[in-house]
């Protein structure tokens, strides 16, 4: 019972953060709301027993990725009158309609998963050695490819962000 109450509280917090991200006019506020949502998602991982992912979520998402976002927002010299008169009324209408349809479809699919239930004690955490064993045996190739992708991303960022100065 307590577990459910905590879950509902955290889920409510995550949704409020996501809505705040969408309605706040300044990108910095959006980023901070998203940090809040990512923290709530880390708490949900913890409630689902995935404590390794909860820690990684906080370090990688709330730490690295959102700091990168905030850094870029502050690096770009954004003016307040950047955006002219709102020309997006059509997008607002259709965006809301289609998103509502999408949400209904997804919730119906979620309801169809009713036959599946969590088994075992809900408070047991995932043993990290098991996770590591799986990562370095069954998914070893994927692990290596992921490291390669990170390397390529790093080189790509340097190339993209370099100021083109006389071809050098």
């Amino acid at each position, binding site marked *: 019972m307590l577990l459910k109450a905590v879950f509902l509280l955290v*889920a409510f917090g995550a949704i409020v953060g996501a809505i705040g991200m969408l309605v706040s006019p300044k990108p910095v506020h959006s980023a901070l709301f998203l940090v809040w949502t990512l923290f709530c998602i880390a708490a949900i991982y913890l409630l689902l027993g995935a404590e390794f992912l909860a820690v990684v979520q906080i370090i990688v998402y709330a730490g690295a990725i959102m700091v990168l976002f905030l850094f870029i927002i502050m690096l770009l010299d954004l003016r307040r009158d950047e955006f002219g008169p709102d020309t997006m009324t059509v997008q607002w209408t259709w965006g809301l309609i289609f998103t509502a349809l999408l949400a209904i479809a997804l919730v119906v699919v979620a309801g169809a998963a009713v036959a599946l239930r969590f088994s*075992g004690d*809900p408070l047991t955490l995932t043993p990290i050695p098991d996770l590591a064993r799986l990562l370095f045996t069954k998914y070893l190739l994927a692990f290596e490819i992921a490291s390669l992708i*990170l390397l390529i991303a790093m080189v790509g960022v340097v190339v993209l962000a370099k100021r083109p100065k006389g071809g050098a």
Partner: protein
Amino acid sequence: MEAAIPLNWVLALSAVLFSLGALGVLIKRNIIVMFMSIELMLNAANIALVAFSRAHGNLDGQIVVFFTMTLAAAEVAIGLAIIVALFRIRRTVDVDRATLLKW
């Protein structure tokens, strides 16, 4: 023993967060906030993966989430570099004015 959280609740949360992310991509004009919405959608999918991993009692779902996070980190770095490059050319983060490939 505590009563477990129903799987449906977790999946419903995932669905709602994914829809909010999709809404953000559709209605926002600031390319940075659109990018944040994409991150939110990735996270919503991750929640569903962890929930199913827990329901099936194997860890493969959690490994997939781990790789998703890795790729999200790479994707954010590249995406923000593209935004910086775009800002350097156009002095704006308004997607409506990013029309270099339009004509």
